[in-house]
């Protein structure tokens, strides 16, 4: 058996047998599900009912406020303002809305007050403003002698139908789906690089501190050891992702089959009311699914694997050489920062630039630069990227990888035999010449 295979095997087994790997593999999906359920539960919880005192001196608006599950409006127009203000301080009411007595609507627009102990949410104040504005507008129309009904009828709503140049119908909101898919893959690559790159680094440091390194490199070449470590660790990571994917898919299958039954039952009860709405929604969902299938799925998956491998190899060679250069993890911080920066930059560019302009100059350039391309290009691909761009970006990535491995192997070779002092950047560069 070749030595490289032996090393890969050992690294893989060492990682997989590690308790934290087992715990993370099986516990983190549970944790994810748990958090999801918890958040879902929280959002279904009804908010505490808040009572709002309305002191409407005009008497024209108080009936416009309709109580709902969250807010209850009480007409306290007759009560003295001073008493009401005291009751707010003593927290009998959540808030007090004061509409001053005036017939001048122009004056009303800026004369309304809301008093409360806790500052109200933006949506709540907007709602209040909306209700009052509507009423005033209606009154203004009336005063001007305009027929409100006619105006309402005259109002038009426009929905533009999106269509691709190729002639297929497109759906609004599909861009969001593309961003989610691209973002998920890009983010996954970043997470994997950081998690497993760190693992490679720690494993190098462990060999250094336990001093076994000299025994091993008297049998194998440092380059073989480094590559074996990187590949072995990545296999452990791929196994972890596979387990997660299988767990996730089977969980989805179970959940959907369970909910499918329930949904059928509830749909039966409300069948008549829902029927028309469902049909409309159904055809929409069908179109979304059709659109999803129209995404370049094969391209996405194949490039995910390639960028995943390329990006991970590129970064983990950095991680390995850093591990070789330092004696313990604390010393690694100063070298890690420049590595993590491009990763974070990639994610930011992905989420902000690509979302707005997937084929703009910034997005295109950063999907070519090897340090950010695995993330940025993955986010661009769902929007359709010319094949030549993908190929150029991949070639650049793997070319850079080869260069970086050469450079990392040199630092690694010298670093693993250096003990006791924290190297500087200048020394690392000097090592390249040894």
């Amino acid at each position, binding site marked *: 058996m070749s030595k490289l295979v032996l090393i890969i095997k050992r690294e893989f087994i060492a990682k997989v047998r590690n308790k934290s790997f087992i715990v993370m593999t099986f516990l983190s999906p549970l944790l994810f599900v748990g958090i999801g359920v918890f958040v879902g539960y929280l959002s279904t919880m009804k908010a505490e009912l808040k009572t709002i005192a309305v002191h409407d001196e005009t008497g024209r608006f108080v009936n416009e406020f309709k109580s709902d599950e969250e807010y209850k409006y009480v007409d306290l127009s007759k009560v003295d303002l001073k008493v009401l203000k005291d009751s707010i301080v003593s927290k009998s009411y959540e808030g007090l809305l004061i509409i001053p007595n005036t017939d001048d609507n122009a004056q009303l627009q800026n004369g309304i007050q809301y008093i409360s102990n806790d500052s109200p949410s933006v949506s709540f104040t907007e709602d209040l403003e909306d209700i009052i504005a509507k009423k005033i507008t209606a009154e203004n129309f009336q005063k001007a002698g305009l027929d409100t009904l006619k105006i309402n009828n005259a109002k038009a709503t426009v929905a533009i139908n999106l269509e691709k140049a190729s002639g297929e119908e497109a759906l609004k909101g599909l861009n969001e789906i593309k961003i989610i898919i691209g973002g998920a893959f890009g983010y996954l690559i970043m997470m994997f690089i950081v998690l497993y790159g760190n693992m490679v680094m720690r494993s190098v440091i462990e*060999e250094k501190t336990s*001093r076994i390194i*000299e*025994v091993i490199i*008297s*049998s*194998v070449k440092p380059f073989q050891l480094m590559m074996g470590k990187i590949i072995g660790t990545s296999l452990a990571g791929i196994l972890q992702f596979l387990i997660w994917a299988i767990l996730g898919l089977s969980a989805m299958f179970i959940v959907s089959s369970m909910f499918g039954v329930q949904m059928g039952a509830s749909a039966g009860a409300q069948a008549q009311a829902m029927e028309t709405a469902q049909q409309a929604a159904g055809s929409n969902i069908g179109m979304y699914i059709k659109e999803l299938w129209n995404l370049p799925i094969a391209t996405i998956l194949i490039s995910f694997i390639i960028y995943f491998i390329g990006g991970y190899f590129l970064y983990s060679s950095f991680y390995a050489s850093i591990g070789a250069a330092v004696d313990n993890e604390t010393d690694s911080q100063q070298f890690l920062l420049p590595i993590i920066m491009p990763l974070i930059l990639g994610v930011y560019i992905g989420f902000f630039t690509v979302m707005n302009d997937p084929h703009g100059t910034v997005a295109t350039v950063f999907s070519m630069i090897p340090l950010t391309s695995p993330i940025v290009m993955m986010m661009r691909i769902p929007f359709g990227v010319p094949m030549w761009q993908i190929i150029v970006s991949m070639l650049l990535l793997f070319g850079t990888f080869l260069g970086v491995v050469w450079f990392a192997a040199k630092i690694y070779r010298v670093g693993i035999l250096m*003990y006791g002092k924290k190297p500087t950047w200048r020394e690392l560069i000097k090592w390249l*010449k040894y």
Partner: protein
Amino acid sequence: MSNILEVNKVVKQYGDYTALNEVSLTVPKGSIYGLLGPNGAGKTSLIRIINQITMPDGGSVTLDGERLKPEHVAVIGYMPEERGLYKTMKVGEQCLYLAQLKGLSKQEAKQQLDYWFERLEIQGWWNKKIQELSKGMAQKIQFVVTVLHKPKLLILDEPFSGFDPVNANLIKDEIIELNKQGTSVIFSTHRMESVEEMCDYIALIHKSNKLIEGRLSDVKKQFRTNSYEVGILSDNIEGLMYDLSQKFTLSQTDFKSLNDELKLEINLGNATPNDLLNTLIKRGQVTHFVEKIPSMNDIFIQTVTK
């Protein structure tokens, strides 16, 4: 007798610093060869070159008649001064892994392991992790790992450091046994008594240069001072001292003896031992007469501080 290892004018530089300056060594087959030198002399640099961990900047190394090549790692066993094993890996698996890295098949490795575990009486350790073992126990494993693949050349850097006297003796016996079976051994050490005890040949490296090399007895001959330790019982000490000081250089010395005698160290200069004896016998009863052989310790200190 042919040579297992020939190091020919090897140069190693780290930046501006020269770690080895045209160092040449010849290690005869079947010998126990002591590589001596103070800390930082360049011993470890040389050992790493022989193990192909680093490459020399100049010169060449020949192993068993062939120029050093990657396949040679399989015939060398190396125990570095900084011992180390994977702390969380089980003893058995670890030994198998390291043996396979040296090119043994799994079956061969297992066979060898059984032999050594039985020999060192550590069969029960197979499933223990290194971190559960004491330092001395881990050192035993380290030794087993080093010799498992039956190397032709064994390179041991400070082999006895970290062992208690019992285990140090055990390992020493194993090294001698392996040497008897034909394994050549290079060991680098500061402990001069083990050099005296075990080595056939020595080399002394100091400040990146080789200063001394040769058969241990030859080196000692080279450093002999022609001095003798003498014990004599005499009635006329003044007369004796007068006679001796006419011909030789004298100094007081001490050695273990049951007699209450005069103890002297006498440098013969150009005279022969018999000249000295003749002078002594005339004046009294000679109870002790031994050539003062320089110890490796003396040679080491004398060479290094020169």
